[in-house]
């Protein structure tokens, strides 16, 4: 794999992380990250939809008329979301119960539509596949990070294993305000690292 292909894949992990840098898909980020399991499930479902819809939209980009492209994308995305929704309902009923309406809501997730509009309708099928995969993994990383912090602080457990006794749990981190707090601080930390890196790069270029 050439360097540029690798770059398309990995840019979503950190440099253009959809949640933490591009700030897309805030709704599922805030809503489902109460535990690591939920975060992983949501991340995997979104990655699947991203991958498939990016590929199909990229393949059909010359067929879809420009004026009706957004409705067409929605139909394609909704198809894959229905598939993954039924799959999760069938094989992982407990995950389906805890994610609830947020699986169907992947249809209107701005990451999926954003990548279709910004990347898939301009690039080849293989590049779009890599982009969808990278962005999906980046989304999963961000969700798992936020979910992990919230689960450890809020319920005192990680992946369901109790680490901290119940009397030391801070309920606020399981509730909505905790989601905003953790999201904000994780974002600030990522921004700090990115800024540090850029400074270093500039420094190197100057020398």
């Amino acid at each position, binding site marked *: 794999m050439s360097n540029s292909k690798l770059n398309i894949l990995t840019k979503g992990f950190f440099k253009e992380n959809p949640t933490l840098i591009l700030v897309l898909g805030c709704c599922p980020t805030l809503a489902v990250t109460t535990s690591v399991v939920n975060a992983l499930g949501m991340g995997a479902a979104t990655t699947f939809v991203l991958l498939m819809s990016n590929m199909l939209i990229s393949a059909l980009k010359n067929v879809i008329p420009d004026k009706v492209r957004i409705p067409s994308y929605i139909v394609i995305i909704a198809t894959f979301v229905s598939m993954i929704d039924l799959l999760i309902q069938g094989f992982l009923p407990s995950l389906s119960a805890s994610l609830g309406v947020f699986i169907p809501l992947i249809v209107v997730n701005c990451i999926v539509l954003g990548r279709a509009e910004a990347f898939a309708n301009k690039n080849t099928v293989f590049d779009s596949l890599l982009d969808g995969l990278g962005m999906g993994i980046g989304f999963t990383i961000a969700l798992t990070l936020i979910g992990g912090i919230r689960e450890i602080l809020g319920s005192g457990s990680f992946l369901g294993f109790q680490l901290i006794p119940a009397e*030391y749990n*801070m*309920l*606020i*981190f399981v*509730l909505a*305000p905790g989601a905003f*707090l953790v999201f904000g601080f994780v974002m*600030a930390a990522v921004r700090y690292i990115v800024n540090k890196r850029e400074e270093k790069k500039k420094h190197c270029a100057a020398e």
Partner: protein
Amino acid sequence: MDKLLHISGSPHVHSDESVKKIMWSVVLSLVPAFLVSVYYFGLPVIILTLVSIGCCVLFEYLIQRYMLHQKPSVDDGSAVVTGLLLAFNVPSSLPIWIMVVGALVAIGIAKMPYGGLGHNPFNPALVARVTLLIAFPVQMTTWPVPTPIWGFADAVTGPTTLGLIKEGGDLTQLPSYVDMLIGQMGGSFGEVSAIALLIGAAFLLWKRIITWHIPVSFIATVFIIAGIFHMANPAEYVNPMIHLLSGGLILGACFMATDMVTSPTSPWGMIVFGCGCGLLTIIIRIFGAYPEGVSFSILLMNAVVPLINKGFKPKQFAH
């Protein structure tokens, strides 16, 4: 040489007021309430207050020194005031480690990320109090019964006045007005004594650190609306005097809502701010899920302060 005229830029009139002086005056004004709570709740009050102040100052110093790389300005006393007010807003039976978490929230989330003193849109002590209330609902609503000796038998807990009303308990158990005035009732340890708080507020008014607008409009709004409800249905809604003297109303109206950083600047703006706080407080108390709404209402009104400031600009001359 001293015959020469000194020429300098404006301002030409100086006052000897400084942030430091104001903050220490606020600390001084809270001393009566502190002494009363020590009398009623004993040693835990002293420990919690010292822990809260110490942690607030320490966290502010550490964040300024090692994260922001600024010259620490903890000697301005603002962290001491935050710590003191935060401690006043918790029950005296609170575990010490929760107090430390509260101090971290006040300084590390509500104050320093916004840029420190003068830049925080929300009152840090109240943000910490509300965070603790949501994070530790059990520990934050276990109210020890005040025992007016140096009682170490603090295992007895009871409801607060407002808690009793909210749960529809036996209203004959409500404390008498005298008890509520001097502080003989359950509650966060700094809020119980109305008289001690009013002495402190009078001192601040005399020193012109606060003006009458916010406390009076805040308390009057609560009193009037509670009075209307009481007149409409005395069986269901309690006397407005009880609303006035119970919970954190006086502490909130005189010491929290009047925080210079997070309240409007013009007199009419302050009155709108105070009325808004009062309205939200009574709505939460009567219709809300929580028995007490002072801290939520002040925080909500903090959020609209920029809007109020925009609406009530002082008149510009020579324009």
